[in-house]
């Protein structure tokens, strides 16, 4: 065993102390008929061999592409200080701070994360316990049901499809989820249909607990959050804003437009994409919901001698104490990711954060112009920040062919929103401060070449048809 300390002599000493001749005796309580069949796994590998295997596997993923893919996970500059702090064993090999006297590092860092996110969201209560944007959104929706004692939630169709799918799984048919449609035409196409919202909220037999909408929405568009919130509150429901944290440097924060809860994906705050996680679910609420928010909370208090000290608090809400009446089964404290987000925010600073958001907008504007120039115009007219959809005929095939040209051309929307016919021929593309002018030029040139090829193919069709 590679990491075990025991010599043969150590084992003998322990067995002798126990008065047994073999460790097998300690497993005699497993009934004969239930003992495991032989474990069939590849043989152990030395560190040298294993490192080569791992490097080879990692090498089979392509890292050479100019990428314009966002859709909830965004590339950002992460100053090396972030990962170097994260690699300290005192952070990553500790556990949940059950013993506050020897866990002040983790506790203060979580408290500071809560404080930083409270600033960003303009909501006072923040929990660092959540897995990702999807699970945080589902927990937020459940909070609205507990608080209002109602059983129906409206979710905008322009919320990330994975978040909506997760919410449906969490609600599991016990609680109702209705989809709030997007406008299908006009200048605001692709944003929440406010008339439909009013209608869905008005059903007296099926009162709504909460309304969930995203800013920017999954298509990158800016939603009328204040209006959505006002209509929601007028119906006695709570408003959940699904947010992207970097955008909060420049977009109005949930607390400013009256959202009761903010949920979202914390990955953009210095956390690598790593094919899906681990990420950080953002969950923040008003003070009125402090007893409904699931997960660990860290509070500031004093020790016996009056020194400042931090401790997990309001613990009697949690699963280890409340068991079947807990607000959630959540047990995790996503502390290491909260730490990454905090160090990233501290290193980048408030001005840097604004610059990151502004660069995304700048590059996205350049990208929009470059793609429009080669025949792929924006699909929507509503304003956007750093992500938008472009119209591309035969989007899936073009996307695949662009890979061969070294470009990851965002996301074919038909892959994730097959139920939206208006998005069948569209790519969702994004830019960040890491996107270069050169990459934009490469993308535009490659797309232009592909679209020209498609046009030529289209022109050939009648010819070949007549020939057949």
């Amino acid at each position: 065993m590679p990491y075990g300390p025991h010599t043969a002599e150590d084992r003998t000493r322990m067995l002798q102390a126990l008065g047994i001749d073999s460790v097998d005796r300690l497993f005699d309580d497993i009934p004969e008929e239930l003992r495991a069949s032989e474990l069939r796994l590849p043989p152990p590998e030395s560190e040298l061999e294993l490192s080569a295997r791992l490097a080879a596997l990692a090498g089979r993923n392509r890292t050479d592409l100019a990428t314009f893919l966002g859709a909830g996970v965004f590339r950002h500059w992460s100053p090396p200080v972030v990962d170097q702090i994260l690699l300290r064993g005192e952070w990553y090999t500790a556990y949940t701070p059950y013993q506050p006297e020897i866990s002040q590092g983790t506790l203060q860092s979580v408290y500071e994360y809560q404080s930083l996110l409270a600033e960003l969201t303009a909501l006072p209560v923040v929990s660092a316990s959540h897995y990702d944007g999807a699970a945080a959104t589902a927990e937020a929706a459940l909070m609205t049901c507990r608080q209002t004692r109602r059983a129906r939630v409206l979710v905008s169709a322009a919320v990330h499809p994975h978040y909506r799918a997760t919410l449906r799984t969490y609600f599991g048919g016990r609680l109702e989820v209705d989809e709030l449609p997007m406008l299908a035409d006009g200048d605001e196409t692709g944003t929440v249909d406010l008339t439909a919202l009013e209608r869905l909220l008005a059903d007296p037999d099926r009162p709504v607990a909460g309304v969930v909408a995203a800013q920017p929405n999954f298509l990158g568009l800016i939603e009328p959050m204040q209006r959505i919130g006002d209509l929601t509150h007028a119906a006695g429901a709570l408003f959940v804003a699904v947010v992207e944290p970097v955008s909060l440097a420049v977009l109005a924060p949930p607390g400013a437009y009256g959202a009761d809860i903010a949920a979202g994906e914390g990955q953009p705050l210095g956390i690598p994409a790593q094919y899906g996680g681990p990420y950080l679910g953002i969950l923040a609420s008003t003070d009125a919901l402090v007893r409904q928010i699931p997960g660990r909370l860290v509070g500031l208090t004093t020790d016996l001698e009056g020194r400042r000290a931090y401790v997990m608090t309001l613990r009697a809400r949690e699963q280890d104490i409340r068991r079947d009446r807990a607000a959630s089964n959540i047990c995790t404290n996503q502390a290491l990711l909260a730490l990454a987000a905090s160090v990233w925010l501290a290193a980048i600073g408030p001005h840097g954060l604004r610059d990151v958001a502004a660069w995304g907008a700048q590059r996205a504007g350049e990208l929009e112009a470059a793609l429009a120039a080669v025949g792929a115009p924006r699909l929507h007219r509503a304003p956007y920040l750093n992500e938008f959809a472009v119209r591309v005929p035969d989007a899936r095939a073009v996307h695949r062919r662009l890979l061969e040209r070294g470009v990851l051309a965002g996301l074919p929307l038909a892959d994730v929103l097959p139920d939206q016919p208006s998005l069948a021929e569209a790519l969702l593309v994004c830019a960040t401060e890491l996107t270069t002018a050169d990459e934009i030029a490469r993308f535009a040139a490659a797309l232009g070449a592909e679209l020209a090829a498609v046009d030529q193919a289209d022109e050939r069709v009648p010819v070949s048809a007549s020939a057949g």
Partner: protein
Amino acid sequence: MGVPTDLRYSKDHEWVRVDGDGATIGITEYAAAQLGDVVFVELPDPGSTLDQFGTFGVVESVKAVSDLFAPVAGEVVEVNGELAGRPELVNEEPYGAGWMLRLRIADAAQLEQLLDAPAYEQLISET
């Protein structure tokens, strides 16, 4: 630990002070001490009706949570709003300012099923 003689007690450690058809309810000093520092009390809305020995709320201490049981059935007339901001009253004055709710007794005969002070003292000395 004194057990006031003018009150009735349930085996779940709630006390009742009867005044005509009204009753004031709280938890005993013994119960509060067992819980430790009370940090939160969840009480029903006025107007709700309670069954005898049914739960009417929850009391939380730093590391424990416990149900509250109604010693008699009735309609909730008033809850102690003070406790929202000062839950420590449950520890400090369990029979006074730490009261939890007042209700209109539905059936006075139910009071017969409760313990008097000596019987309650006996109960807590055995546990």
